[in-house]
């Protein structure tokens, strides 16, 4: 049985309340940090743990913290990114709904480590019920003396607030989130300066994902070294995976990094196999932005090694034959799903969510959507396939924030691995309107894909 660090007590009745959470050993990390450690010690433990940002980028959290500037006379801020909007990802919603106090506890120790006296949890506006849950949890923690002035007699003060967003995927990008928190449109800022130097209200700021902040709790309780023993190589600890699509048991699973992908998909402990007795066609392993892989390549790398749920193994082979762990949004497609239709759907999403600041993204995502739409509806030309590749290449790397890349990668990868399905849509438009391409040729490993 794999170890659970975040969801250990998830099945305890009433774990969403302060009382029960505390009975289960909750807020020990706050006591340990505030009574026995210096802020630097806490940063050191997180560094030792090897924790990497759980929002998608995978940047080492401890290192991000150590970049925080500490000029005299300026407040520092910690902002929790709970704007969970990456299609395929719903782990933060799960954590905040069922075990909100682990986030509050993590916010307290992380704010202490960074020297922040006011911290914000920016939650996407649609999660109004979760906002209410967090507000209640904050009130309970404050009532018990874990928030407010002079917490546990340590002399450390912290106020914690929940901020609702307004419905915009782009606000999951950290500088767009800060703009939004300042009451503006969510247009990402040009970096540098990085938020660590000039973030919220031009003050040094750290922005971390919900799961990263929650993970600091077991890291402090067990020690960074212990945490780092879980996992493989630079993929340490546990990770929440949001599993969705055509599987028997969709849901949120805490895995020890390093579980084989095959076990994750087919074992009853996790996804329980493909639903309705069908076969797997493809997987998007880390949220809609990461490259889609056909069944054979998600289970085994191009060299025939078993693919593992780690940052490194999923990326094995680069974009030619690999993908990314990303946010852990694991979307499984069965044989009946149409890759062209899904790619069009994702392209529409990115077009809708582009903030409009950079021309390559604003215009390019529109073209991707339009061209994919006409292919899906039987009006495509063969030259459209190369046109899509061309447009996606012109977006990638040419924008202020990563939304451009996120829009380009799904399209480029779908064509890389499923070009024949796109061609079929052009050559047999009538059939394409009536039925799906199926997965006939996926019974055998695909010929080695050429790099697009």
């Amino acid at each position, binding site marked *: 049985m794999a170890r659970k660090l975040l969801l250990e007590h998830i099945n305890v009745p009433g774990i969403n309340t302060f009382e029960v959470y505390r009975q289960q050993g909750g807020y020990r990390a706050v006591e340990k940090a505030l009574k026995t450690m210096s802020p630097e010690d806490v940063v050191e433990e997180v560094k030792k743990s090897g924790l990497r940002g759980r929002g998608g980028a995978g940047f080492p959290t401890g290192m991000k913290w150590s970049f925080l500037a500490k000029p005299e006379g300026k*407040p520092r801020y910690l902002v929790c990114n709970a704007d*969970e*909007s*990456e*299609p*395929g*990802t*719903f782990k*933060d*919603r799960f954590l905040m709904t069922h075990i909100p106090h682990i986030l509050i506890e993590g916010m307290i120790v992380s704010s202490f480590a960074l020297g922040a006296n*006011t911290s914000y949890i920016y939650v*996407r*506006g*649609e*999660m*109004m*019920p979760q906002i209410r849950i967090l507000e209640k949890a904050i009130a309970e923690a404050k009532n018990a003396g874990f928030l407010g002035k002079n917490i546990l007699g340590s002399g450390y003060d912290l*106020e914690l*607030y929940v*901020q*609702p*967003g*307004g*419905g*915009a*995927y782009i606000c999951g990008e950290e500088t767009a989130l800060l703009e*939004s*928190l*300042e*009451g*503006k*449109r*969510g247009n990402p800022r040009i970096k540098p300066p990085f938020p660590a130097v000039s973030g919220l*209200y031009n003050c040094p700021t750290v922005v971390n994902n919900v799961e990263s902040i929650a993970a600091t709790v077991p890291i402090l309780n067990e020690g960074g070294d212990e945490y780092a023993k879980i996992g493989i190589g630079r993929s340490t600890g546990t990770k929440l995976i*949001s*599993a*969705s*699509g*055509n599987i028997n048991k*969709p*849901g*949120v699973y805490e895995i020890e990094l390093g579980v084989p992908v095959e076990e994750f998909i087919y074992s009853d402990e996790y996804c329980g196999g493909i639903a309705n007795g069908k076969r797997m066609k493809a997987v*998007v392993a880390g949220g*809609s932005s990461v490259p889609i892989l056909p069944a054979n390549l998600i289970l085994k790398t191009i060299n025939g090694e078993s693919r593992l749920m780690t940052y490194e193994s999923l990326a094995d082979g680069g974009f030619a034959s690999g993908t990314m762990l990303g946010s852990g*949004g694991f*979307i499984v*497609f069965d044989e009946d*799903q149409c890759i062209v*239709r*899904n790619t069009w*759907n*994702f392209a529409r*999403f990115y077009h*809708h*969510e582009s*903030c409009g600041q950079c021309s390559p993204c604003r215009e390019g995502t529109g073209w991707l959507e339009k061209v994919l739409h006409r292919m899906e509806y039987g009006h495509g030309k063969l030259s459209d396939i190369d046109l899509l590749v061309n447009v996606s290449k012109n977006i990638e790397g040419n924008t202020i924030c990563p939304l451009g890349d996120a829009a380009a990668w799904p399209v480029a990868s779908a064509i890389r691995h499923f070009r024949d399905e796109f061609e079929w849509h052009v050559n047999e438009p009538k059939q394409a309107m009536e039925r799906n391409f199926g997965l006939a040729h996926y019974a055998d490993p695909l010929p080695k894909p050429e790099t697009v």
Partner: protein
Amino acid sequence: MLSVNHTEEVIFSPELITKFNEIVSRYPEGRQKSALLPILHLVQAEYGWVSTAAMDKVAEYLHLQPIEVYEVATFYTMYLLRPSGKYVLEVCRTGPCCLVGAEKIMKYLEEKLGVKEGEVTEDGLFSWRGVECLAACGMGPVLQIGPEYTFYENLTEGKIDELIDSLKLKTAAKPADEIS
């Protein structure tokens, strides 16, 4: 696209102003603009949508130029810039939900309510629209209803029937509730 004009004057109730004041107190002095998004949510919950007149009042309250409020209200998708049905059913239309039938659910809603996306039913009760990923992919198809954003998961046509019936009943029962 800015809202249709709303000529009635908007006066925020003292209760609403108290809530505004509490929100403003969460930010450092001079940073009251941070309260804009939460305040617009409160305004929408109160009036059912966000009119230009209401935005002007918010601007006045927060000491902002009206354009600073308009540009925000038009950027974020949650703010309704024209009157909608009493219940706005927002169905997730993004990939993972479509793998498990969201498109069928939207089609069914359109037939059931007899109005196209964004339109309001004759009795003024319902409108519906497709929205982008609601971060509930494992429970799809899903829909939400503001202003509290109540969530309905694993939707089927039968569940849509039940939901719409219960909302109609709830509305019909309102006057009696108020009398008691």
